[in-house]
């Protein structure tokens, strides 16, 4: 629902055209910060400056392609998988492993979009109970994250984790299990109602039952999916008006031929990348959806269009999402250029309501305002404290705002305040917020400190406190 009743109308024709800096809408550090928040997990100071210099086109290029993997993070982490117990019990380590990748990835956009797909195909290890499968599904989604949606959807029907999650593994020939067929239509490709004509249904119960027959015969053998012809119902099925001896790939094809399919996926991408407050009307999505279908469901292309678009860089879209827990934590760590163990982070993120590999249900996370309530907000503030104070044993001592300030030659109180405001919020805060921070710094400068603290202790404490205060500003909760 719209929050501001008098919202200026968005023209679908120009919304998706490429953004070019103008006087009315210049390329400034706010836009760089916005881009990095959405397309990655926040920016370091260097990335902000570089983005400002390079301009929108080259910065989006960089994010789409990723930096070169000089430290071979992908290789190293792939090897680490061997050290994770493959069966039950590896859940926490698997989540920690993915968080590790997100944190140090030279190509954060890839991880972020994989997180988007993870929410889309929401499979929880609570039922799958096999870290190896979950990581396998993650690899599948990552491979096609910026690629073909058609291929991903097709391969997903034989993904081991998905087979366990939606019971494809149990589907019998004479008693097919409808779970996967239903969710394929309802949650993965079409949605219940026709996107353009909401009164109309996209499919009937009969369609689901027939489609379920096509998914029989798939079995998990030795950790891989296989096909047992004698368990497969190979009779004729009629699904969404098409009849034939359908196999899983055919059902995927049929679903993607429906009118709603490109809109459904485009709408999800819209909510994830563009805005949670602007309604994703069919008119607004039409150019995207049309192109998505014409390109044979090339998701990467749609992603690129959105990231370069006018609408994406417009004032209405700016700060129009609530920052999800994973983003909240990773932006702080990446911004501070620190190193942090991710195993502690898993527990913390669970408290904040978003633990990767453990979505609450097949519908994924609710997101938006649901991320924030009286308790999660308090936890976020306390997490920000834990990450900046260097005295919290869970997070180690290497995300230190004081060190960052020293490395960037930031000394006076005013410089410190401005530094962190620029790093995390690009200075876009009301004037009185900045004033309050300066006032705090002044009071702290003259205030008493424990008698055994050195001068350096007192200074560092001030810097850390200022950083913590910046992270508790309400603007930081928005993406």
């Amino acid at each position: 629902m719209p929050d501001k009743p008098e919202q200026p109308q968005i023209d679908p024709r120009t919304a998706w055209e490429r953004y070019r800096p103008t006087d009315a809408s210049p390329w400034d550090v706010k836009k760089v910060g916005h881009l990095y928040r959405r397309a990655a997990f926040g920016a370091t100071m260097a990335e902000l400056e570089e983005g400002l210099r390079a301009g929108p086109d080259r910065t989006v290029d960089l994010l789409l392609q990723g930096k070169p993997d000089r430290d071979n993070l992908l290789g190293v982490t792939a090897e680490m998988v061997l050290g994770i117990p493959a069966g039950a019990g590896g859940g926490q380590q698997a989540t920690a492993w993915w968080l590790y990748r997100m944190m140090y990835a030279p190509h954060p956009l890839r991880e972020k979009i994989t997180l988007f797909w993870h929410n889309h195909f929401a499979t929880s290890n609570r039922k799958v109970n096999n870290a190896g499968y979950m990581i396998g599904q993650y690899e599948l989604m990552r491979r096609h994250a910026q690629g073909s949606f058609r291929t991903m959807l097709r391969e997903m029907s034989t993904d081991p984790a998905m087979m366990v999650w939606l019971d494809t593994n149990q589907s019998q020939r004479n008693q097919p299990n409808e779970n996967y067929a239903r969710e394929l239509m309802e949650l993965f490709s079409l949605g219940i109602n026709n996107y353009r004509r909401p009164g109309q249904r996209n499919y009937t119960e009969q369609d689901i039952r027939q489609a379920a027959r096509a998914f029989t015969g798939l079995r998990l053998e030795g950790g891989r999916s296989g096909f047992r012809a004698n368990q497969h119902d190979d009779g004729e099925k009629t699904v969404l008006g098409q009849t034939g001896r359908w196999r899983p790939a055919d059902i995927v094809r049929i679903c993607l031929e429906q009118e709603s399919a490109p809109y459904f996926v485009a709408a999800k991408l819209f909510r994830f990348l563009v805005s949670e407050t602007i309604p994703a009307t069919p008119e607004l999505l039409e150019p995207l959806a049309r192109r998505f279908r014409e390109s044979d469901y090339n998701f990467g292309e749609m992603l690129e269009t959105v990231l370069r678009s006018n609408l994406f860089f417009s004032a209405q879209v700016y700060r129009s999402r609530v920052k999800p827990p994973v983003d909240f934590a990773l932006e702080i760590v990446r911004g501070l250029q620190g190193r942090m163990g991710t195993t502690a982070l898993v527990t913390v993120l669970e408290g904040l309501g978003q633990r990767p590999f453990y979505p609450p249900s097949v519908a994924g996370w609710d997101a938006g305002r649901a991320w924030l309530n009286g308790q999660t907000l308090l936890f976020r503030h306390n997490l920000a404290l834990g990450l900046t104070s260097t005295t919290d044993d869970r997070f180690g001592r290497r995300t230190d705002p004081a060190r960052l300030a020293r490395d960037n030659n930031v000394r006076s109180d005013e410089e410190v305040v401005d530094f962190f405001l620029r790093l995390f919020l690009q200075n876009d805060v009301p004037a009185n917020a900045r004033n309050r921070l300066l006032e705090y710094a002044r009071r702290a400068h003259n205030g008493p400190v424990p008698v055994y603290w050195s001068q350096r202790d007192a200074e560092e404490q001030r810097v850390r406190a200022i950083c913590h205060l910046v992270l508790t500003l309400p603007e930081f909760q928005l993406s």
Partner: protein
Amino acid sequence: MFTRRDFLKTGSSMVALGGSVPLFLNRTAAQAPASDRPGGRDTILVVVQLTGGNDGLNTVIPFRDDAYNRARPTLRQPANQIHRINDDIGLHPAMNALHGLHQDNSLCIVQGVGYPNPSQSHFRSMDVWQAGSTARDLPEGWIGKALRNIPGAASFHLANNNESAPLALTGAPVRVPSIRSLEDFQLRVEASSNRDRQSLRSVIESTAAPSSASSGGLLDFVQRTAVNTFASSRRLEQLGRSYQPRVPYPNTPLGNHLRLAAQLIDGGLGARLFYTSLDNFDTHAAQALSHTNLLRTLSDAVSAFYRDMSARGHRDRVLVMTFSEFGRRVHENGSRGTDHGAAAPMFLVGGRVRNGLVGAHPSLTQLDQDNLRHHTDFRQVYAAILDRWLGVPSRQVLGQEFRPVDVFRA
């Protein structure tokens, strides 16, 4: 003590801001349900899980039955120390506090509770009880599902250290927080002195305040949430310091959890569901002493909680329910302990329960593979609590109709 008037004073500013305030701790007057419907008096449910399999036969004892004495040569309780409920059944000697509740018309004991084809595996059976279902896959819990019907109800998992959220609470629309103490609600800062601490907190709270030209939108939402969060946090801090229990609580972990529940209830914050557990009931060997201690802990803590709540006028709003994943064998084993069993009793404590025994004690001689037979499905007890106490349609939560047991007074 924090009175309702104090609450309304700080709450009025929230009403002025208008709109639905997404608090976990607040409900406005407009949302207060009608008081004649079940659940309408903001009824409270506290679930105490007895982990490990409580020996029901030595908790609610058919002391006159010869078979009991024969089956429990070393573990039987002397008849003259048993607290009588009626001429045939009594409570374990350690449960004098709970017996006092019976004399105060507040204790209901449902006997012979279990489910068909009982599992003797801790994990499976506990999952069944927590999910309210015997299906093969149990992804959600009965309380989590119930919360979907009463979204305004704040609920808490009173956790021991390193305990993760139980299955029973999974599936709730908003994740049920696991808390260990009131400190989990405090806004923490790292300060160099007391003055610095005040300074930091005032900056955090003042920068969160919405500006006068409030335009709606996400930022507004964040700011309102923040303001309410800090207000609640301060209130809870005050509660922590000023709470005077009317009755002394035992200094055991369970006692502390129930005390925390009492503080949250009395703070008028809309807290309605609590889940906590007491562990170590898996007494395969040398049961006598450890079981006695556990029952005493349970009895003293629950009784203190109930009496504290009663003294504050919440007697009729409160219901405490205890359960365990299974009972234990009728015959003791060679190590002076007992092995996993099946049917067992459940306790319901509250001002509106039907005092006394519900259902007969299962026969000690007509056994099912050496275990007591159940006559009441545990989901019938859940149905009674859901339908008649919380005001939640039990069929939605349990998946099918179960005839509710008659445990509440009219």
